[in-house]
């Protein structure tokens, strides 16, 4: 019984499967537009954000953790001192996700009934004094935080491994956990993209958010419905492309950066056959039955075309069709930046899917750079 559950979880947690499930469920749970929202309501998914829903989420997460704790292998990964913060991150991010969605649902209901949001104070100029009303809250928060930190420090010793030895490369070598989403990206993109271009775009993209989403009427209180497109996309980036990737990178990647299920022993000799192909090979060899052309521009033509279509044809197409209202509200400049950041972020899941289902290595492969 236990073994079959463990086997089931091992299978389920493979990136191919877990990511697909997440990817397709995600937009029903966090609907970005009216269509998804209708289905979300029909399926009753809003119940996740009720108190009962919250208890159910936490009970199942805790149950999974306890069940896993009985397995020596699982325990050793979870309790590795530097991995403990990720458990905190996992529970913290889910708890605060629940808390913000819970309040957002309440406010959405109030707004639909033409009531002001919960945060609204009747005589809006009614202020409270910082001393003592704010100062005592700060004091309590600091004390609780210090207690957490002290208990954590007493229970768990800071790790210290063997002295640094530049000639003994550990397998796997992992970056600190908060960078593991980037390291996990290295599986799908070359280092210049995963390690330099994407981090830069994440920083620039984050800074650009307030300049693209400027509707002040939904500022200063929790809400979902009126902001659903931005919230849905942001949550996709934060929960799926960041937190989920960190968890895969830390807990599920072993020697050779191969995938290992949470209940699978790390086998140093696990070999995964890699016979990935480029777009050029798929088009010329598999589809047209020819040999690869010699001219590099012709050879990489299909890949270059795909990328140009992705970034230059899809945006205007969307602006004319499903994102029409959005485009009209934002104007062309904001819209262009917005869609560029979205498409860039989406390129990661797309590359993952094409790797798994088409064995795709590169869209464009040149001696100088690969995409």
């Amino acid at each position, binding site marked *: 019984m236990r073994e079959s559950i463990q086997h089931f979880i091992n299978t389920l947690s493979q990136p191919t499967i877990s990511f697909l499930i997440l990817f397709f469920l995600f937009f029903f749970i966090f609907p970005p537009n009216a269509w998804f929202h209708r289905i979300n309501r029909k399926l009753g998914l809003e119940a996740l954000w009720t108190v009962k829903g919250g208890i159910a989420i936490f009970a199942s997460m805790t149950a999974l953790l306890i069940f896993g704790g009985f397995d020596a292998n699982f325990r050793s990964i979870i309790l590795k001192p530097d991995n403990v913060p990720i458990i905190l991150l996992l529970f913290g*991010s889910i708890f605060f996700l629940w808390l913000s969605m819970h309040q957002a649902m309440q406010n959405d209901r109030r707004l639909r009934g033409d009531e002001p949001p919960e945060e609204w104070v009747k005589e809006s100029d009614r202020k409270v004094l910082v*001393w003592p009303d704010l100062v005592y809250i700060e004091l309590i*928060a600091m004390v609780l935080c210090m207690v957490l930190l002290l208990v954590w420090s007493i229970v768990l010793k800071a790790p210290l491994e063997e002295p640094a030895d530049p000639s003994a490369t550990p397998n796997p070598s992992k970056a600190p956990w908060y960078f593991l989403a980037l390291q996990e990206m290295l599986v799908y993109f070359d280092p210049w993209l995963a390690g330099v271009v994407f981090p830069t775009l994440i920083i620039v993209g984050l800074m650009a958010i307030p300049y693209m989403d400027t509707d002040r009427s939904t500022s200063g209180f929790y809400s979902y419905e009126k902001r659903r497109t931005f919230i849905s996309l942001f949550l996709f980036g934060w929960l799926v492309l960041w937190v989920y990737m960190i968890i895969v990178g830390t807990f599920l990647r072993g020697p050779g950066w191969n995938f290992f299920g949470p209940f699978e022993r790390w086998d140093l000799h696990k070999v995964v056959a890699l016979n990935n192909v480029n777009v050029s090979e798929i088009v010329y060899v598999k589809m047209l039955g020819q040999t690869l052309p010699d001219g590099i521009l012709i050879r990489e033509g299909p890949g270059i075309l795909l990328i140009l279509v992705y970034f230059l044809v899809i945006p205007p197409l969307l602006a004319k069709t499903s994102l029409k209202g959005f485009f009209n509200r934002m104007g062309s400049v904001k819209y262009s930046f917005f869609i560029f950041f979205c498409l860039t972020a989406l390129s990661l899941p797309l590359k993952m899917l094409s790797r798994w289902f088409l064995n795709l290595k590169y869209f464009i492969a040149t001696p100088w750079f690969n995409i």
Partner: protein
Amino acid sequence: MAKDKKNYNPFKSLIWKSIFRTAVPTEKRGRMMQVLNNVFLHLHPVAVPKHSVKVKYTWCMGGLTFFVFLVLTVTGVLLMFYYRPTVENAYTDIIDLGETTPLGIMREIHRWGAHLMVITVWLHMFRVFMTGAYKPPREFNWAIGVILLVLTMLLSFTGYLLPWDQLAIWAITVGSNMAAATPLLGREGPGAALVSIGDINLVTPQSDAKFGLLGESEVRGMALLRFYVFHCVAFPLVAVVFMAVHFWRVRKDGGVSGPM
């Protein structure tokens, strides 16, 4: 004074008043003066809108991030007394920290505090996003926040190398390899060969972005020194400046956001 012990109130004593400039106040005017007369409390306005003190709204995350930063500063200074950033000493100094120096769990508090700060800063950003608090007029403060986010992670990253154990140098090696892949400027990055004068290639392991980060071509002693200086001096100073601007902007933008 000793005679009427019953009425003695330490919060009204000469010493208390000399430090805090007023007795502990119980009436409105005094409470306002309390904030105005204290350099630390003066980071706050005297009065704030009622909704903005609700824990349910801010989760105190920004404040806690700042608090953890302060804890890290204090414990970090203590650690600096006993730690030498050289290949010969770093590792053994860390062992001594746990075994012979009278610092107890300072290293633990510093390490777990660093992890905690990364988490609280992420959650703070998440809160700001979910309340739409980045919208005008707060858009620039959000941008400052993003810089603080990057600084927090860089602080954590540079500190990771200092114990000089296997975990440390290989994590930093993985990280700094990314710099080697920088387009044009990294030795393995695309276009590196283009950056040259005649036949002389300007981007080499002795001159590329990774070298600039580490102070040498691989993670060795110079990198340790460089990360130590970044970690203990440069980044904290820059972070403090940005935090000052961040807090100042919170006030100038009308205090913590609320419904209009």
